């Protein structure tokens, strides 16, 4: 085999701690290597052309690029060698940047390490075979999981482009957190006024199937052809019949049901429609509060419902949806501040969370849009906001910044002044994080026009004095302790991964970080793709962000799906297992272990059975390869011979 090796300098990223010239010289001595060179930026246009030129000029049959991580540029270079007429699998990469030049400054050791890595790559390449992808048809339906603003945006964009969309929402209505907000920064427009029409759109689009009050049961398949089982939880109301008239809700005698939508600040009924703008606008019975279910009597709703929609005997139903791509937009939950005993959260009724305050401010909220204290209904005069509660706090396991609270504090302080002109607001903060268009101006306005007092420092303790609360904090700029007597304290509780995010990620085979936020493929260059082809991310489920960023990511995910669906078929990777029939002893171990059911029996003449791989189903994990006793089944491009060649090159 005629092999060419290209050693990349990556500007100085590699060259500063690896002697790339020496690497090129040393590997030139290897058998089969007929050409080596170094290059400043191999992935650049001229760099790729240089490879193509060398392939032609030196008649190369295989190429090794020693550069960055293959996770970064393997696809780039595979395309490049293919253009020059080589099969894309006649190419190997040696990672001498992420694994060498960036993790040690020892030039001598690095150079030696780089040489060895290239030698291993060359050794493997000698065993490479040209591989050819097969093609499968794409099912051009898309599923969106999570109906917050990010999911809604993604669903609408896909539907507008003519795709069939399945939207799965866990709660009884879509809308997510944004539906609970009063007004939104930095323009202070009414949240439900801008979100409402989008929610109605979802309901009206014929090509959107909405499964509300539903969760993902299991996922199988792969890009282009997923099969998702969706559990539709029992609502005890036939939603096809229910007209959303609300009569049941009025008459239901179980009236002490904490209203989740109002964050526990008011009560709702056992049968309820969560809020007036809910989509779908249908009633659901909350079993744990319904007298019929808890005590076996009542049945009033069934009597009064004009549509005869009540079904006490309803059970969960599981439906299977087949789709070609999935967008995950499951959003977030809020940190439970009762971890802060010193703030008396959960102890003092007038210490509330930011989202509770949104409900208080909202005209559709528990107090009709009048700011009142939960304890006694009195209008507050002094309101204290505390930033970073459950954020940037390693002691509660949340060292990251929630990204939106600085802004919503400013918003809420401004709105407080609008509602109660003679009120005063105080904000305890560590840093103000407002890096987007018109954001810092917004915070400045809160300070300059609305007279909000910003105090730089954290709060140590909150305790009652009479019917007020004393907030004991620090003004670190002055270096003295400050005390503020407040009527209401709002804790800017941080954002955390939504409940059940980890379990969902495991069903989808996507990764999550240590806090439960889903991992993007690349933090800068592939922020909406996951590591699993055909699954995309949108909104806060990937990491804290505000509405504009969530919407942008929703649209971006939709664009990715559309790009995927622009073709009728997709290539499947040829890096799949394949059986050498002659060696197969038909033990069936591979069939047992394959997680995808990609291996079946093939009957030969005379009743002989041999294992056979369904190449479009095989995902290339190699489990069968490691399991097979006679090594009859081999994972292409990672065969035993290839891996052993690498080992031998290094150890022998």
């Amino acid at each position: 085999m005629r092999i060419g090796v290209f050693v990349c300098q990556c500007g100085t990223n590699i060259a500063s701690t690896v002697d790339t010239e020496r690497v090129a010289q040393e590997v030139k001595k290897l058998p089969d290597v007929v050409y080596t060179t170094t290059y400043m930026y191999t992935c650049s246009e001229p760099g790729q052309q240089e490879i193509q030129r060398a392939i032609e000029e030196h008649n190369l049959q295989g190429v090794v690029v020693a550069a960055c991580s293959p996770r970064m540029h393997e696809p780039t270079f595979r395309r490049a060698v293919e253009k020059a007429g080589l099969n894309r699998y006649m190419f190997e990469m040696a990672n001498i940047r992420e694994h060498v030049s960036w993790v040690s400054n020892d030039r001598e050791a690095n150079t030696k390490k780089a040489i060895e890595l290239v030698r291993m790559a060359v050794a493997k390449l000698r065993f490479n075979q040209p591989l050819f992808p097969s093609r499968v048809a794409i099912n051009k339906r898309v599923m969106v999981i999570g109906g917050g603003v990010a999911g809604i945006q993604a669903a609408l964009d896909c539907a507008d482009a003519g795709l069939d969309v399945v939207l799965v929402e866990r709660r009884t209505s879509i809308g997510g957190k944004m539906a609970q907000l009063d007004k939104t920064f930095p323009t202070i427009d009414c949240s439900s006024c801008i979100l409402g029409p989008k929610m109605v759109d979802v309901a009206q689009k014929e090509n959107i199937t909405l499964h509300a009050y539903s969760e993902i049961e299991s996922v199988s398949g792969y890009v282009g052809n997923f099969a998702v089982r969706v559990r539709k939880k029992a609502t005890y109301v036939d939603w096809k019949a229910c007209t959303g008239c609300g009569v049941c809700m009025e008459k239901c005698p179980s009236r002490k049901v904490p209203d989740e939508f109002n964050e526990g600040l008011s009560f709702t009924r056992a049968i309820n429609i969560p809020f007036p703008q809910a989509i779908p606008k249908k009633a659901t019975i909350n079993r744990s509060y319904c007298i019929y279910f808890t005590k076996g009597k009542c049945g009033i709703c069934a009597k009064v419902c004009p549509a005869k929609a009540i079904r006490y005997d309803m059970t969960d139903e599981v439906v299977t949806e087949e789709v070609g791509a999935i967008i995950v937009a499951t959003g977030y939950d809020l940190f439970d501040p009762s971890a802060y005993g010193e703030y008396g959260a959960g102890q003092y009724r007038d210490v509330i969370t930011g989202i509770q305050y949104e409900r208080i401010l909202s005209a559709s909220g528990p107090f009709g849009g009048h700011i009142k204290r939960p304890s006694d209904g009195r209008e507050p005069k002094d309101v204290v906001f505390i930033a970073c509660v459950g954020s940037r706090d390693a002691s509660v396991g949340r060292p990251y910044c929630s990204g939106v609270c600085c802004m919503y504090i400013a918003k809420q302080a401004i709105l407080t002044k609008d509602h109660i002109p003679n009120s005063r607001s105080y904000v305890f903060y560590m840093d103000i994080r407002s890096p987007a268009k018109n954001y810092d101006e917004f915070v400045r306005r809160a300070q300059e026009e609305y007279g909000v007092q910003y105090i730089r420092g954290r709060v140590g303790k909150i305790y009652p004095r009479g019917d007020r609360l004393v907030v004991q904090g620090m003004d670190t700029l002055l270096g003295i302790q400050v005390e503020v007597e407040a009527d209401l304290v709002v804790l800017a509780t941080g954002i955390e991964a939504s409940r059940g995010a980890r379990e969902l990620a495991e069903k989808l085979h996507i990764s999550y970080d240590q806090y439960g936020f889903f991992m993007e493929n690349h933090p800068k260059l592939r922020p909406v793709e996951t590591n699993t082809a055909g699954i995309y991310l949108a909104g806060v489920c990937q990491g804290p962000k505000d509405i504009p960023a969530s919407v942008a990511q929703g649209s971006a995910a939709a664009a990715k799906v559309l790009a995927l669906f622009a073709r009728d078929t997709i290539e499947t990777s040829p890096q799949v297992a394949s059986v050498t029939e002659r060696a197969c002893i038909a033990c069936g171990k591979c069939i047992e272990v394959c997680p995808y059911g990609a291996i079946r029996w093939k009957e030969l003449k005379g009743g002989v059975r041999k294992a056979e791989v369904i190449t479009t189903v095989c995902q290339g994990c190699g489990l069968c390869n490691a399991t097979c006793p006679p090594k009859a089944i081999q994972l292409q491009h990672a065969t035993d011979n290839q891996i052993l060649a690498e080992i031998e090159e290094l150890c022998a």
Partner: protein
Amino acid sequence: MEEREKTKNNTEMRILGFLCNWCSYGGADTAGVSRLKQPTDLRIIRIPCTGRMDPLFAFKALISGADGVLVSGCHPKDCHYSVGNLYARRRFEVLKDFLPFLGIESDRFHYTWVSASEGQRWQEVVTEFSRRIHELGRNPGFDMNTNLVNSEAR
């Protein structure tokens, strides 16, 4: 051979790492991108999944003179291929028990889980494992005379 002599006198050990493509290889990349400094002894081989990791590979490396073998994959339940790493774990446990019969310290083999986001954890794993191998010193390798069992395995 000449190369081999040089390394012998050098302080560097010969450590082989088998990393799954989805989690740990990414974790090692993350460590690199964050410039987290590590000992230079390790050479990484990328495999699709720890499920692909045939104990034979580790075995082959150790009897051919590698001083240590490190395998790292996705956290349990987090495997890109759902269960590959669980099968792997079972095999590695067997391997660890088996090594001493060949006169190889079982400490020369280590497997762990590192996710793509855990650059810092990767740094710790590499540093700790390299330290351990330096402590154990050179792998005397497989001795034909005392361990005949092995000739057929090879």
